[in-house]
């Protein structure tokens, strides 16, 4: 397995799904993809509030961030601090 190729395709898949979930304009999608490819997913979600998006776009990204965080939290709780 070529790890680099695999990771790249995973990243592409995540971005594609993320765009489908967020339903952003094509222009914003391209910006989001470019930012994530540069800074990574975690930094994007940590820093999007300071980036140049419309309030509606920010609301959608914020909503996704909250769902991801809540879901991660629920997994931690279900694992009972294992």
């Amino acid at each position, binding site marked *: 397995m070529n790890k680099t190729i695999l990771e790249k395709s*995973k990243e592409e898949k*995540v971005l594609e799904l993320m765009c489908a979930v967020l339903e952003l304009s094509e222009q914003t999608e391209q910006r989001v993809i470019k930012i994530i490819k540069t800074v990574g997913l975690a930094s994007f979600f940590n820093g999007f509030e300071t980036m140049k998006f419309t309030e509606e776009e920010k609301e959608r990204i914020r909503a996704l961030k909250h*769902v991801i965080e809540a879901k991660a939290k629920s997994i931690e709780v*279900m694992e009972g601090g294992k």
Partner: protein
Amino acid sequence: MGTKVQYTDDFFHGLNKLTGIPMNKIKNYAKENNPFNILEHPNVLEPNQRQLEKINKLNEFIATYNVLKLEQEKEKISFHSPNESGQYFASLLGGMKDRERFLVAFLDNSNSIIELQTISEGTTNMTMVYPREILKMALANDSSNLLLVHNHPGGSVKASQEDVAITQRIVDIFKPLDINVIDHIIIGGYSFSSMAENGILPSDKMSIANYEPIEMEEVMELDEEMEI
């Protein structure tokens, strides 16, 4: 407590915003149920076609996002404890109720992943495992150790006697080659159990290697399962 309430509220708003499911519907359901069931079993809210599609996309995104995030956090994925490997594989297989999957992580001598392969995908309660395929991949990757993983779509994380027997068969094949099975992780819902941690992981060869395909059936009755 306040933080938890805030978390739940944010989750509701997020779900509403991204899927279009009305807030009152989400909140009413969550009054008496685990709100995360909405993601796992979207039909509980009787969503329309578009809302269902959005939830499915969201689920798919979360699963792939978690895997990628883990991989980005660790350049080289190594397992130093059953907890680490359990959490890793719970991210990959957690919440999968549609079918049973059997994965093998081929590891080097420091227990870093060389390759991770889905060996088989079955139905909700049965899958076939082909030891010959695992052997071919282990040799091709020059693996020192193997880590076995499968999910129980029914949600139980208890290792059945059959799970232990299957692990024994794989140990019988690999032990003579000096390739160790270091654990067998079982994922149920978003939880996991580790045979190594629970002291039920077979470690020595017990009989001659048998390369015939293994039919794995999820045992649903708890009395037939091994208590961990």
